[in-house]
């Protein structure tokens, strides 16, 4: 087993060697511009792009023409929200989203709000981080033009009832955008069955290259139109100008193809490792709390709060395992995870959270190592924690008058 171990597969994933192999010819040998219509170099590149587009579309049950390539999910989210708002401004300016969306959606919504271009409703989530479709329905007004709710959350892995939300959107004639960055390739995604009109996702979360993503834009029932946010040569049906990064797109296509073939066996294998990790840690360590939905959760996600120890110190104690924490100290803002706060997790437990993200290349041996290490480090840091000591003495920490700083 090689150290350090990568258990941060929500942040990014290593590229699958098969993806790299598919990409390699498109750097030196087949380097053409897919928009060059008059020579073999261009035709070759275009053919490769169209092949990739088909694989990507197939994974989400879309038509290849409905795939718009972008630089990644952040750009896709920006294009979806800003593009729809600008296009349908006369119909309405109200957007409905949820409080646990990725920053790419939340900050785009906030920026539209700040410029006076939109009013935004941020729906609360339940204690598992799930959006209630009834809340979506009752938030819709005659000014609502877009609902943007994520498929699966990047911190806690909770999977939203997207198909129900899609149904409501359709019935009310409102467009539905879904940030599916964490879900695509990990769980079945079907834009038809889920009633999705626009969907953001990216390659590097599914063992593809960084720097390429897609926005699915529905072509029929209804035909969704967007005002482009990048002007230029009119690529991607005019929705996103810029020379296509052919090798990246080829890699994205291969990554989607592999996910489509392997998901049925890969998801249960990863979920089994995750379940073993979860059971071993939570059985060994009292006062460890699962964040996120117990069952409606991404197969590779595990987010746990360990009471009385701070997240960053946990990460520091496990420096040969790559993990992420909802602790304030891992961010520059000194505020703990807004996602965990939205679930109603107390601030102190939000500071104590660790996110494990399992992926395709993790092994049982690595999970065994992680289990041992987590138990060891949490135990050591609890010995060092004045809060743990007080709790053991029977002091109710909530009754203590803390001098907040």
């Amino acid at each position, binding site marked *: 087993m090689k150290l350090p171990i990568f258990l941060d597969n929500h942040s990014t994933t290593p590229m699958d060697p098969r993806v790299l192999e598919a990409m390699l010819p498109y750097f030196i040998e087949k380097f053409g511009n897919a928009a060059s219509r008059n020579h073999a170099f261009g035709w070759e590149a275009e053919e490769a792009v169209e092949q990739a587009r088909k694989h990507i579309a197939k994974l989400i049950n879309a038509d290849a023409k409905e795939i718009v390539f972008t630089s990644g999910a952040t750009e896709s989210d920006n294009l979806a929200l800003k593009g729809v708002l600008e296009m349908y401004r006369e119909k309405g300016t109200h957007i409905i989203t949820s409080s646990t969306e990725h920053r790419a959606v939340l900050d785009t919504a906030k920026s539209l709000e700040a410029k006076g271009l939109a009013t935004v409703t941020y729906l609360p989530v339940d204690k598992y981080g799930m959006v209630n479709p009834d809340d979506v329905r009752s938030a819709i007004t005659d000014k609502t033009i877009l609902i943007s709710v994520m498929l699966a959350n990047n911190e806690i892995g909770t999977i939203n009832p997207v198909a129900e939300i899609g149904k409501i959107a359709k019935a009310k004639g409102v467009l539905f955008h879904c940030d599916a960055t964490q879900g695509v390739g990990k769980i079945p995604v079907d834009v038809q069955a889920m009633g999705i009109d626009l969907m953001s996702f990216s390659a590097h979360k599914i063992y593809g290259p960084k720097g390429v993503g897609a926005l699915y834009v529905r072509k029929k029932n209804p035909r969704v139109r967007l005002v482009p946010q990048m002007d230029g040569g009119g690529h991607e049906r005019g929705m996103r100008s810029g020379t296509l990064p052919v090798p990246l797109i080829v890699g994205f296509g291969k990554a989607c193809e592999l996910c489509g073939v392997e998901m049925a066996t890969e998801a249960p294998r990863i979920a089994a490792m995750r379940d073993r990790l979860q059971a071993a840690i939570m059985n060994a360590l009292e006062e460890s709390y699962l964040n996120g939905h117990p069952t409606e959760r991404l197969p590779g996600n595990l987010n746990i709060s360990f009471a009385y120890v*701070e997240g960053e110190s946990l990460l520091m104690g496990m420096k040969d395992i790559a993990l992420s924490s909802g602790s304030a*100290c891992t961010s520059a803002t000194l505020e703990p995870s807004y996602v965990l706060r939205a679930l109603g997790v107390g601030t102190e437990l939000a500071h104590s959270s660790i996110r494990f993200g399992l992926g395709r290349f993790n092994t049982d041996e690595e999970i065994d190592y992680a289990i041992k290490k987590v138990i060891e480090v949490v135990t050591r840091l609890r010995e*060092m*924690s*004045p809060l743990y000591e007080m709790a053991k003495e029977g002091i109710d920490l909530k009754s203590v008058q*803390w*001098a*907040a700083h």
Partner: protein
Amino acid sequence: MAYSDKVVDHFNNPRNMGSFSKDEEGVGTGMVGAPECGDVMKLQIKVQNDRIVDAKFKTFGCGSAIASSSLATEWLKGKTIEEAEQIKNTDIVQELNLPPVKIHCSVLAEDAIKAALADYQKKAGSKTGTGSAQ
């Protein structure tokens, strides 16, 4: 963020981690911070003849907070009350090479030292009636 070697050393080999009984003769206890802020430090000193003969800490917080309090106990040992009052957070920042986002950890450590000294002086004062040196 990369930690300085000294922070890593204190984190992996904390000095003087533990607790004295609060009621023990000559013990002063300072507890600062709040769980919702992500750091709580408990710092204790044991004083004999106006000199700190031992110190202990327990800290809930990030690596820099743990290192700051561990370092504080090292520095406190052997110092007189007056000398201990001179320890500044900037000294801790310098010694541990803390980045700007971690300066609050050193401030907390200084607060913990001050709180422990004040607690000791309060206890000593109420016992002997001589008042504190502050």
